[in-house]
């Protein structure tokens, strides 16, 4: 029984990890960021490259990936998204384009492969990130097998969620972000620098994606297409949880992860996936604005 709960918890934490960044960029800023999965992918590649070329392990890769994906997110916001606020369908298309460009950049090794230069760790192939040995050795505690790596993901996810909550609800910056979420015009009228705050918020959400990428790299294959499947799950969680609601996102990730885990064990993963989608459809019909929502822009 504890095994089932643990697997569900682990699935939930992975969902939450991806959805956390998305709930900020989509929830707070109304941008359907299709490139979110690619920011996850960039985070994973940062970990792979840091391992190969700098000899840095997972723990150093985490902050590095946060900075890399965060800066990339800032760049995307500055160059593209800031011109598209309020045009939700346009952001979808534009960020999808960004996603394709990012995938190809990694696949073509930033164009270097045209000149016959090969950077180890890039390219269209499969990469892997080394996980420190003590994180792969399971520990038996009173008959329950504790998996250190999955536990590590759960802990990091909790810490990041806590940090995000603190930033959003306990800092002046967070108050400004929440004000913009409610109504950007009035927020601007009250003297909030909407552009600056939006850019920083977007960068923070992107940075979270990078961290998610590093943690996913520990048990998934790292490849240019890895972000595509991740982003769908992220959107599911955000939409079910309620746009812009941190609590809703956490709760939705918890529910969907547990359902997935339990059904997968009782029958199989394919049916589990179908059940999850059925639950999502049901929840959206029941509460079109998500589990928790408030009137926003």
């Amino acid at each position, binding site marked *: 029984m504890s095994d089932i709960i643990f697997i569900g918890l682990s699935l939930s934490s992975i969902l939450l990890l991806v959805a956390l960044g998305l709930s900020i960029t989509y929830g707070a800023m109304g941008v359907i960021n299709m490139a979110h999965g690619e920011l996850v992918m960039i985070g994973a590649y940062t970990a792979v490259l840091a391992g190969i070329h700098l000899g840095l392990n997972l723990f150093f890769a985490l902050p590095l990936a946060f900075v890399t994906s965060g800066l990339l997110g800032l760049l995307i916001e500055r160059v593209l998204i800031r011109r598209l606020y309020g045009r939700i369908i346009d952001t979808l298309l534009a960020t999808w384009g960004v996603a394709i460009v990012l995938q190809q950049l990694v696949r073509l090794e930033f164009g270097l492969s045209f000149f016959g230069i090969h950077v180890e760790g890039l390219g269209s192939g499969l990469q*892997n990130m080394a996980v420190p040995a003590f994180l792969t*050795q399971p520990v038996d505690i009173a008959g329950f097998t504790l998996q250190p*790596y999955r536990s590590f993901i759960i802990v990091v996810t909790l810490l990041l969620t806590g940090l995000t909550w603190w930033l959003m609800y306990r800092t002046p910056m967070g108050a400004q972000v929440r004000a913009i979420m409610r109504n950007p015009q009035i927020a601007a009228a009250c003297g909030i620098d909407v552009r600056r705050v939006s850019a920083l918020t977007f960068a923070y959400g992107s940075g979270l994606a990078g961290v998610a990428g590093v943690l996913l790299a520990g048990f*998934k*294959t790292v490849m240019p297409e890895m972000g595509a499947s991740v982003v769908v799950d992220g959107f599911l969680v955000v939409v079910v949880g309620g746009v812009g609601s941190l609590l809703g996102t956490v709760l939705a990730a918890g529910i969907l992860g547990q359902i997935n885990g339990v059904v997968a064990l009782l029958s*199989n*993963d394919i049916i589990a*996936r179908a059940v999850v989608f059925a639950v999502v459809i049901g929840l959206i019909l029941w509460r079109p604005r998500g589990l928790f929502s408030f009137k926003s822009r």
Partner: protein
Amino acid sequence: MKTNRRNFLKQSTAFGAAAALGPSLYAGAARASGEIEVGILFSLTGGLSIIEKSLADATMMAIDEINAAGGVNGMTIKPILEDGASDPKTFNEKASKLVIRDRLQTVFGSYTSASRKAVLPVFEKRNSLYFYPTYYEGFECSKNVVYTGAVPNQQLSNFIPWIINTLGKKKFFIVGSNYIYPREMAKVSKILIEQHGGEWIADEYLELGHSEWGAMVSKIKESGCDVVLSNVVGDSVVAFYREFKNQGLTHDKLPICATVTSEIEIAAMGPEFAVGSYTSFPYFQAIDTDRNRAFIERYRKYVNDPNAVTHHALESSYFQVYLWKQAVEKAGDISADAVREGIKGQVFEAPNGTVTVDPENLHTYLTPRIAQWGADGQGTIIDEYKEPIEPLPYVAYGETPDNLFCKGTGLDTAKL
């Protein structure tokens, strides 16, 4: 009936095309005297490019070697390279381009069954030859394809008895990706497991590309099996082996015995996750012969990567070009019909050993081998047959060496 219809189609297309194009139709591929054009069709872009690029490289290497040694009957081989872009529909379009516009008689290509099935109608309709280098699920009998990879009996007829008798494991958990190859492999496995006194306690599938293995590995753990037979394909393999270790399962107690995990997947997951597990293939990079060592060295030099790995489909991609060359030399002609006749019974000393093309079903005799993976990402060959065994593409449906379903005259559908 089938053959008749096919002949009819062939004649009518030939008539129609000849009416339009005049006499140049069958002379096409030998256009400039002293040159033979052949097609190469693999995915150079997209998700499958990592593996298919290596197959294209091995094919090109064989062609370069043959050309450097004087060509075929004094003629130089000129390859025309096309990109299937990891998409069966693109494969079909590119195959049509090679066969119809370039009028090629022979094309080397395909890694997935999906892409082979997509190009098959083109080659059958235009009566050209396709050389397919990958291990696959069998259940196909085309006189327009020469199959040089393993079929299920060449990967499993040694593997299952060995697991039961030598490893002493009797309870199988069969797991695979959800498409035709793993399902056909499971079918053959079950027949063999029951024949040899073992039992299978589960037969489970996950989507191709699925990477969340928590629930499945937990199920394996609870099932009470003592061996896992894996037909998992592609990047899922990596997630599977990693989760297996993370949940505390070890290959010395509960080994994964795999039919798809090759040197490429081992390198991608990190060898420490596969140490002690087993794979069955006719070729491993670790085959300890001078011929294979020289082959690996030439390949690494050719792709300019001192760490490049070789694997089963890559080796088949290489030696099938030589089989084709010998067939052309024997037939003295490059037309598909002549090469098909010429290649029947053709023998070549490949890096894995002697390979022979079966005169009936155009599949290849290969030597089954089992390897155990080590910490360096290489296998140690711990069991091998003394000689190559006959390919039986319909073994799951009761085909035996004395009762062939697929013959030179076509598939005997009454036996299915």
